[in-house]
């Protein structure tokens, strides 16, 4: 299938089960649907639950939200064999041309799941404070090198005994200055920061300066091991590009 004109920005959203990937996508759609032409692909593990949730959220025309079955292999579908997702993205782009952004939601997976650059141009990795304050410190390719790390549900911090600023600082330490964003659906400022990040990636994608960065399946960063005494770089960074999308927002 040939897409006439420039294709959409393909933005992946990955992260463990229950961290709020669908809600984050719903938030982006709610905030940006008026100014951008959007589409969504979901990769549900066993149902089209996420697609139905997004449709029922009423933030986007239901026909623009499509579910792709992954044969119980959510990781494969975004990484080793992206065929099913890629065909679905192309169909969506053709049916609703011209789309500005297609959001691809991974089925909830573990900390090692990241998107192949063959499928998406940029990716968000989503953690949440309720999943445990130590998760950001555990690192992994998504936490360490996704284009944006979101620490979601920051409003729940006091209820689950998690020090949110410390968790975000852990994320920063694991990411060599790549953006980290604490997000809560109750925090207007955080929502604005998220949408301005999406806009900046889109602008950079359109201007041709955006380079898809592969977080890769490599072993995680272990910066936090050296906690309290600064951190050392035991790994080589020269083998993957470090260009980032425009004035990406970083806030605690």
């Amino acid at each position: 299938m040939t897409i006439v004109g420039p294709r959409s920005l393909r933005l992946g959203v990955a992260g463990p089960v229950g961290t709020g990937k669908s809600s984050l996508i719903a938030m982006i759609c709610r905030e940006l649907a008026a100014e951008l032409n959007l589409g969504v692909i979901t990769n549900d593990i066993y149902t089209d639950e996420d697609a139905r949730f997004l449709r029922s959220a009423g933030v986007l025309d239901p026909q623009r939200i499509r579910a792709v079955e992954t044969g119980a292999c959510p990781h494969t579908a975004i990484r080793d064999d992206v065929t099913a997702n890629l065909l679905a993205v192309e169909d969506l782009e053709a049916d609703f041309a011209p789309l500005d952004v297609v959001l691809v939601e991974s089925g909830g997976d573990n900390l090692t799941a990241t998107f192949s650059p063959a499928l998406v141009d940029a990716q968000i990795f989503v953690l949440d404070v309720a999943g445990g304050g130590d998760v950001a410190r555990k690192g992994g390719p998504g936490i360490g090198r996704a284009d944006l790390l979101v620490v979601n549900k920051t409003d729940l911090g006091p209820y689950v005994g998690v020090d949110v600023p410390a968790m975000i600082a852990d994320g920063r330490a694991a990411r060599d200055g790549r953006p980290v964003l604490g997000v809560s659906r109750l925090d207007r400022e955080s929502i604005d920061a998220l949408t301005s990040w999406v806009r900046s990636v889109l602008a950079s994608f359109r201007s041709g300066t955006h380079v898809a960065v592969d977080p890769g399946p490599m072993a995680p960063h272990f910066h936090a091991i050296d906690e309290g005494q600064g951190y050392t770089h035991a790994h080589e960074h020269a083998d993957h590009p470090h260009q980032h999308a425009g004035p990406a927002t970083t806030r605690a």
Partner: protein
Amino acid sequence: MLLADARLPTGAHTQSAGLEPAIRAGLPAESIPAYIRARLRTVTTVEAGAAVVARSRTLTGTTDLAADLAKVDLAWRARTISPAMRETAALLGRGYVRLLSTMWPAAPAVAALATLHGTNRGGTGRAVVLGVAATLAGLSADQLVRLIGYEEAQTVAAAALKLEPLDPMDSTGWVIDVQPEIERMVDELSSITDVADIPAVGAPLIEQWAEIHATTTQRLFRA
């Protein structure tokens, strides 16, 4: 070998070869080997027969290969009653066309496939695409049929492990056990050159399950 490898990036991991709806409809795990044989004798025989003819057409190099391949595809469609199964095969066909376009970008047969897929989202079924792939990869008709039979059996066996509590050693045994069935397909199909000789053997229950699955919301596999 690569064409029958589940790690080939063509979307095969999204498929159960109809096993998921079969199990949901009550097929017991001990009947899965019989299910594999039933598929090999019916829908897989039709698909492999069409693939053999498509290979033969591509090898001969007719003046309008796209039109010729479309005729083979039409013959396969006429023998594949379930719209859901045709749609699934077309989707898988697109996955293979994507791969072939990368591996053999200059091949006229790939251009013919791209023409067929470019004008119609349904494109051609997987059978025709595999026939072209076999030609480009230098496979004989025997090898092509064997590959399609093996891939079908292995798809069911692999999906079974996701759907039922089974020992992977047992499901591997099923694939080995159906080898004579696959060789029978090779004998029956590998010398076909005319679309009229593609067997027309349906499997109404498998087709009905495919139709039900197409409208099921809670599913692991696309088909």
